[in-house]
C-alpha cells in the first residue's frame, strides 16, 4: 500500500464513526473491546473494520489475528491500548488522543492494515509488525515512544512498533485532526480498499512452493546412514503446505557381517508427500507434518563367484515429523525437518551361499535441511 493511500485510509477513520450503523458485522479479526460509554463501542469498531476490509475480509476464521482494545480516560485525554496477537506472536500499540471518537477508527485501521499484511504475503507477521514488542512488553512499548511526542499534536500517539511491512505509517502515527481528509479523499480510500480487496483475494489463493535444495540424511533404510539430495514442489494455502519431493541418495556398499568380501551395493531413490500445518513464532514457523514416502532400492550382490541381476524393490512408509522454517524475507526460508517413518514392508536382501545381507528396518529416522522458495503473488 502506498503511503498516500495509507494516510487517506487512516485519515478517514475517525470520520466514519459519524454514521449511525451499529450492525454487528462479521469480521475476520477476533476482537474484544472495552471503552467508556461516550466512546466508540465494539460494534462500531467492527463495523468500521468491516468497511475497511470490504468483501475480501473472508469469514470469521480467515485471519489468525486476535485483538483486545481498551480505551481509558487519561486526564482530559483518552488512551487506546490495543493488544494484538498472531498465533504466538504478541504486540501492543498505545495511542492517545484528545477525543475518544478518534481511537475507535485508529483501532479499526490498525487491524485492517495488519490483515492486509497478513494476507499480502506468505511470510508471517512478526512482533514488529504487531507493535514492536513481544508478549508482555507493554511496559517497554509505552516507554519507547509517545511520551516524547509533540504536545502540540492534536493527537499524541504512542507507537510501540514499526508499521506493517511495506507500509509508510502506522495507525499509531495517526493525527486525525491534522491529516483528516476532505470528503474528496474518501473515494481514493475506497479505490485503495478495492485494490487491497483484489490483493487479499490473491493472497488467499494457492501459492507455489519450491523446496530446493534439500540435504537429507536418514537411518533405518539402508545398512549405513544414508545421505541424499532432494527437490520438492508443492503448494501453500494459508498455514497449510503440501509438498511432493524426490531424493537421490548416495550409493553405499555393505559387507555382510562375518562373511568378509560378501555384501551388496545399494542404490536408492525416494519420493515423499508431506502435508504440514504451520504455527508462527516470530520469524519462525513450526509445522507438524504427516508424511507418506516411497523408497525404491536396487541392490547388487558382491562376492567371489556371485552374479547379480541388480534387482530392485519398492515399499511404502508412513509417518510424521516436524518442519521448521526461518523466514528470510517474503519469498525465501531456510527449512529444517525431522521425521519418523514406519515401513509397511521390510524387504530382506539375500545373497545365495551367504544368506541375508540386510533387512530394511521397521522404522526410519530422517533429517532434512534445505531452502524453501515461495513463488507467485
Amino acid at each position, binding site marked *: 500500500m502506498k503511503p498516500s493511500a495509507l494516510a487517506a485510509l487512516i485519515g478517514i477513520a475517525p470520520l466514519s464513526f459519524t454514521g449511525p450503523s451499529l450492525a454487528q458485522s462479521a469480521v475476520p479479526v477476533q476482537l474484544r473491546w472495552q471503552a467508556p460509554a461516550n466512546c466508540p463501542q465494539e460494534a462500531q469498531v467492527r463495523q468500521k473494520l468491516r468497511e475497511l476490509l470490504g468483501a475480501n475480509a473472508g469469514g470469521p476464521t480467515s485471519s489468525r489475528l486476535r485483538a483486545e482494545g481498551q480505551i481509558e480516560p487519561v486526564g482530559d485525554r483518552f488512551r487506546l491500548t490495543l493488544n494484538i496477537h498472531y498465533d504466538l506472536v504478541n504486540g501492543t500499540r498505545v495511542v492517545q488522543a484528545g477525543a475518544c471518537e478518534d481511537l475507535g477508527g485508529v483501532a479499526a485501521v490498525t487491524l485492517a492494515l495488519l490483515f492486509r499484511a497478513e494476507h499480502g504475503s506468505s511470510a508471517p507477521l512478526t512482533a514488529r509488525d504487531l507493535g514492536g514488542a513481544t508478549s508482555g512488553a507493554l511496559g517497554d512499548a509505552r516507554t519507547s515512544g509517545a511520551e516524547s511526542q509533540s504536545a502540540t499534536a492534536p493527537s499524541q500517539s504512542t507507537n510501540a512498533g514499526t508499521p506493517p511491512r511495506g507500509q509508510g505509517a502506522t495507525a499509531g502515527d495517526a493525527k486525525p485532526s491534522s491529516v483528516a481528509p476532505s470528503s474528496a479523499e474518501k473515494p481514493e480510500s475506497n479505490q485503495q480498499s478495492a485494490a487491497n480487496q483484489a490483493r487479499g483475494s490473491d493472497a488467499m489463493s494457492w501459492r507455489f512452493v519450491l523446496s530446493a535444495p534439500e540435504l537429507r540424511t536418514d537411518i533405518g533404510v539402508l545398512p549405513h546412514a544414508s545421505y541424499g539430495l532432494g527437490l520438492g514442489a508443492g503448494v501453500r494455502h494459508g498455514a497449510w503446505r503440501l509438498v511432493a519431493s524426490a531424493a537421490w541418495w548416495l550409493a553405499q556398499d555393505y559387507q555382510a557381517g562375518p*562373511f568378509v568380501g*560378501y555384501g551388496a551395493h545399494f542404490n536408492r531413490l525416494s519420493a515423499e508427500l508431506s502435508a504440514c500445518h504451520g504455527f508462527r513464532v516470530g520469524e519462525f514457523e513450526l509445522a507438524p507434518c504427516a508424511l507418506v514416502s516411497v523408497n525404491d532400492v536396487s541392490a*547388487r550382490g558382491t562376492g567371489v563367484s*556371485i552374479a547379480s541381476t541388480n*534387482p530392485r524393490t519398492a515399499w511404502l512408509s508412513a509417518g510424521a515429523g516436524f518442519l521448521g522454517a526461518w523466514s528470510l524475507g517474503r519469498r525465501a526460508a531456510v527449512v529444517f525437518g525431522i521425521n519418523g517413518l514406519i515401513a*509397511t514392508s521390510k524387504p530382506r536382501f539375500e*545373497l545365495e551361499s551367504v544368506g541375508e545381507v540386510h533387512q530394511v528396518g521397521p522404522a526410519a529416522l530422517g533429517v532434512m535441511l534445505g531452502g524453501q522458495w515461495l513463488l507467485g503473488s
Partner: protein
Amino acid sequence: MPSGVDDHQRASKASVALALAWLALGCEPTVVIGSCSEASGMDAGQAGASAAVSAGMVATPWSTGFEDGLCGYHAVEGYCYARHEATLEIVRSPVRSGKFAAAFSVNGNATMAERSQTRCVRQGAFPKSAYYGAWYLVPAVQISDGNWNLFHFLGGVPDGETHALWDISLANNSDGALELAVFNFFDRRFYPATTGVPPIPIGSWFHIEIQLKRSAQANGEVIVYQDGVPALHLTNLITDDTEWGQWYVGNYAKTLVPTLSTVYVDDVTIREEP
C-alpha cells in the same frame, strides 16, 4: 453407555491396533540380490552331485578349493557360518592351489559366553566308507585347551536331534608344538598323541584326511592321515550310529593364547577311494 457405542469403540480400537500391527510387522519379502554363478558347479563337486543331493546322499567325489567362494558348499546344499566374533573370508593369499582359499578366524577368548566358530558344512547321508580331507595352513603356534577344532562329525536326524561323533583338533604337545588330536565321542576317549607323524608345520600347508568306515556295530574303522602318513588307526569300533550326518571344516576354539586365530583352508575333498 449403550452397548452399541461400546461395540463401535471396541471395533475402532481393534482396527487401529491391527493397522499399527500391520505397520509395525509388515511383510518381509525376500530379494535375492546375488546367486552363485554358473561356473560355481565346476568347483562344487563332480557331475551327478545334484541328483544325489536331492535324494539326501552326499555324492562323491566332491571337492571345493573355494575358487567359487562359498558356492561350492551352497551348490550341494551345504553352508558356511560364522558366529560369536568369528569371520570367514575368501582370500587370494595364501592359497595352496588355484586363486582362492578360505580364512577362518575366531576369537579364542575364554571369557566369551559362546565359543567363537566359523566353519563350512557338508551334510546328508555319507558313504559307508569315504576319505574326508582338507589342506590347512596354521600361521602360528598358539596355546589351546585341547579343543581347537578343525574337523567335526556329527550324526542324527535332519532338523532334529543330533550328536557328535568324531573330532580332529589341535593340541599342544609337551614341547608346546601343535599336533593332531582325535576325540571319539562314543567312548569319550581323547587321542592326543598321534604316533608316527611330527607336529603340524607352522606357516605351510599340510593335509589332514580321515578315512571313516561308518558302522553302528563294533566293526567300524577310523584312520587319520597327516600329509598322507597314518597318524592314528582305530579298528573294530562303533564309528557312526546314524544314517544322516554333517561334516564341519573350519576353525572352532574356546581358549587360545593369543586369543585371535586364523587358519587357512583349501582343497576340501570327499572321495571313496584313496
